[in-house]
């Protein structure tokens, strides 16, 4: 078996950041700034979990996936799964970030923080 539970050490305390699980979540739009804040907050937790300070202190220009990036595919899966839940808790939208649109883009939205924030902003508001 591979490195089971490499991610187990620090479960992100998302409940402290957003609404409690059972709250009624209303459908909201999201600003580009909020979208960026979601990505940075989530990267902060993931960086802590993976012991990667580059992610913990990520900025708009931080590379996520691809050449010279800080996430392997497992890290990217974790980031996307966690972010989809964060988006739901923040604005009531169940979105799939890794959809065909994202995959067919010339520049992947998963390459850099700013591109991911742009993409979340676009996907959530296009509902």
């Amino acid at each position, binding site marked *: *078996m*591979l*490195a*089971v*539970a*490499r*991610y*187990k050490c620090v*479960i992100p305390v998302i409940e402290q950041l957003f609404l409690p*699980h059972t709250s009624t979540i209303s459908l909201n739009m999201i600003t580009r700034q909020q979208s960026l804040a979601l990505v940075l907050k989530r990267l902060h937790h993931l960086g802590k979990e993976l012991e990667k300070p580059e992610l913990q202190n990520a900025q708009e220009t931080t590379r996520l996936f691809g050449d010279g990036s800080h996430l392997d*595919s*497992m890290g990217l*899966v*974790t980031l*996307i*799964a*966690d972010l*989809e*839940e964060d988006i739901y808790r923040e604005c009531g939208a*169940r979105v*799939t970030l890794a959809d065909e649109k994202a995959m067919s883009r010339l520049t992947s939205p998963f390459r850099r923080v700013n591109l991911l924030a742009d993409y979340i902003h676009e996907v959530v508001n296009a509902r």
Partner: protein
Amino acid sequence: MPTAIITGSSAGIGKATTLKLLNAGWRVHGFTRQLDGATHANYIPHQVDVTNESAVQNAVAAILSKEQSIDLLINNAGAASMNALLLTPGSIAENLMRVNYLGAFYCIQAVGKQMVRQRQGRIINITTVAVPLALEGEAAYVASKAALDALTRVAAKELSPHGIVVAGLGFGPIPTQLTRAVNAAKLAELNQLIGRTNGTTVDEAADFIFEAIQQKNLEAGSIRYLGKI
């Protein structure tokens, strides 16, 4: 209370497994096309055709608005067709691929993301001895279950670093709706071949699944059979 999603929970192996889990104190969400199955306070049926990706996603989202976690997914919903390869209509082959492989794929994607968030979970895919035996007369079924087995192995590798164990459990013939049209002599011959001369009941199959669920060291990517293969 541990929570499971079982597809194909209204009949046969899925229903028997659902009852075992309910009796052991689990809450079970069942996915079937017809709302049916156990009558139990902790059984929650959902009308979901697993071949419909958005129906699967919506049902999982609805479950997650009520549940804190999903501990177990059993991809059991299945269809079969026994037919000579050259006489199998393409539409049947396509349908088997959709139910047996794509249905499980959609469920793993939808539930797997939640399990990644939890950093734990267990996924069991129900398969058949017909794959390793390369049974003739079942080409479309065998191919669809072989696709499922391949998915089991790859999913196990990709998901085990997230604390998720994916494994397959396979059976020989079991008397259910699925096998009702199959010639009894052929079933007996197959049972003989896998060392289960008395055949296998749905209850024995459910026990086999239940034991695997409880097993602490269930090996990720393993495909185990009830019978000699």
